[in-house]
């Protein structure tokens, strides 16, 4: 039931009382604007934390080896510890379910050439599981697979920037790349959130590297992820047991910090998670605080507006206005203003976030973004609160005797 006359009354009232309209509109716009900005900026901070750990899986454990720094079991200090394929298999057998993905790693520095283009790159020789350990995203083709490792095939998966540097504008898939004089077939191109260095990597099967560059089964490093069902404390105790057993296996003193090093990202994730948790709580408090301030503001203004219009209400009642029509006219006006002002604040907030996003990057605020649904929900909360705050005094005003209302000046 659209009543054009009612809306004409409302628009006349809005039009002729500009200060009042602007005042109430400003409160709502400002509240929503602040809400959007605060949420956006904090989300930007959270994004920065997230991206700092985007390179590796959050549940990663790295096992590296070095020279012993202490004598133990009758062996002198200064002994080089070297991992082999059997060590990786031993970890899998020993810990079973606790290991989600596991891969060896061998590092090689190579000069890569394709036709006339040349670059220096790092090769990581790995198992197929490595893709999940490193959060590698395959853009074209495929990653290293089990049959590559089994057959020691000469294939490589190259980073997005390697393709860009060596293959220029053409696709690398199916072509042969020369690494230190040996031809490898490119079977995949990947990208990685870890930055440019990660995207200049070249992956090849661990077995291929072992055969070609050493003819042994040495590996430089064992990477694994723990079962994600474990919580931080379980994961940390898992990695200390792992460290202890590895040291026993290689007859290294338990106090030796250099011979075998186990790094568990759970330690860092735990700290970051606590920080983001506190930050989220803080945002929630600030966000709701802003919203409540907005609600209080619009409520005050509505009460003031009804007071200001008391005499007009008296006149209208003397002329035959029913209480319902009085409530309707005040309520619709306030809801209309809140809706327009609320969405203005919404678009302003989103627009400003979009605009200032690039200049905030140096303050560790990345992609300040607030979900549209959240801001719309906040806007509707304000509209509802404004409506309610208008309804109660309007209802009261519609009930006062016209003679009382008329006596006010």
């Amino acid at each position: 039931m659209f009543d054009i006359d009612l809306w004409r009354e409302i628009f006349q009232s809005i039009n002729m009382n500009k200060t009042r309209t602007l005042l109430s509109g400003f409160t709502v716009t400002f509240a929503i604007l602040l809400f959007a900005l605060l949420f956006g900026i904090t989300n930007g901070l959270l994004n920065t934390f997230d991206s700092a750990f985007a390179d590796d899986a959050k549940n990663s454990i790295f096992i590296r080896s070095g020279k012993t720094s202490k004598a133990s079991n009758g062996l002198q200090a200064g002994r080089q510890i070297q991992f082999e394929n059997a060590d990786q298999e031993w970890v899998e057998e020993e810990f079973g379910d606790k290991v989600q993905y596991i891969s060896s790693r061998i590092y090689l520095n190579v000069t890569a050439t394709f036709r006339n283009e040349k670059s220096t790159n790092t090769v990581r020789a790995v198992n197929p599981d490595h893709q999940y350990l490193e959060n590698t995203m395959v853009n074209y083709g495929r990653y290293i697979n089990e049959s590559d490792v089994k057959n020691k095939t000469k294939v490589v998966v190259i980073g997005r920037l390697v393709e860009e540097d060596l293959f220029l504008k053409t696709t690398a898939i199916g072509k042969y790349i020369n690494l230190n004089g040996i031809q490898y077939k490119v079977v995949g191109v990947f990208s990685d959130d870890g930055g440019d260095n990660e995207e200049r990597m070249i992956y090849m099967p661990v077995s291929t590297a072992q055969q070609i560059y050493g003819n042994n089964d040495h590996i430089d490093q064992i990477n694994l992820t723990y079962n994600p069902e474990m919580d931080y404390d379980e994961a940390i105790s898992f990695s200390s047991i792992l460290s202890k057993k590895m040291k026993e296996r290689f007859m290294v003193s338990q106090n030796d910090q250099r011979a075998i090093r186990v790094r568990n990202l759970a330690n860092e994730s735990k700290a970051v998670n606590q920080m983001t948790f506190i930050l989220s709580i803080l945002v929630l408090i600030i966000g709701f605080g802003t919203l409540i301030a907005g609600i209080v503001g619009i409520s005050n203004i509505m009460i003031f507006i009804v007071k200001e219009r008391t005499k007009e209400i008296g006149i209208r009642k003397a002329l035959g206005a029913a209480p319902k029509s009085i409530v309707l006219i005040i309520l619709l006006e306030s809801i209309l203003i809140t809706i327009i002002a609320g969405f203005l604040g919404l678009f302003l907030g989103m627009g400003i976030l979009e605009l200032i996003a690039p200049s905030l990057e140096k303050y560790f605020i990345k992609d300040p973004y607030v979900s549209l649904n959240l801001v719309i929900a906040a806007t509707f909360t304000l509209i509802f609160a404004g409506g309610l705050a208008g309804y109660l005094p309007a209802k009261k005003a519609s009930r006062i005797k016209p003679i009382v209302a008329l006596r006010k000046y």
Partner: protein
Amino acid sequence: MLKINKLHKSYPIGNTSLHVLKGIDLFVEAGEMVAIMGSSGSGKSTLLNIIGMLDEADEGEYVLDNVPIKNLTEKKAAIYRNKFLGFIFQSFNLINYKNALDNVALPLYYQGIKRKERIDKALFHLEKVGLKDWATHLPNELSGGQKQRVAIARALAADPKLLLADEPTGALDTKTSHEIMDFIQSLNDEGKTILMVTHEEDIANMCKRIVRLKDGVIMEDIFVNQVRASPICLI
């Protein structure tokens, strides 16, 4: 037309209550022009407000145009006010953000009349009070006398059975007062029933009947020889 029987009204003041109207009996025929007089506190405004359904009586009988006015809901009172009564106030009570035309058309809006017809009717009544050329002016662009004439046009717009005026000339100078009274008299000549509260003797004498109130009771109720307010008489 108007029948009032043993009307009582008191207002609570703190723990006690102030008895303002102590049994008023009043009968007004159609076409009468009655002045209600009395010093302040005599209850004259309260009586007018009850007649105007702006206020409610505690006890007593009130019949307007054969309709008993009692146990009014807000909604019913609004309908009766709109249908039966036209108000003229001392302070005009125009809505300040509406122009003269919209002010006059407002009671018609509450009657549910279509916009086109509202404007036609409002223009007709504005012309009647001689302000057709001022239709688009806001109240603050009008003089006191003009404002009161817009208010009269508004009171007439809904074609009420009874015109109620609360000190209609209270805020006006003598010359303008006489112009307004002349106009009200001409409305009465056309057959409108008019009830007005005033405390000025010369204004009261321009009516046909004077009811004097004192301390909540009617002291005197006399018919008088109407003094014409025609501006010519002033010269």
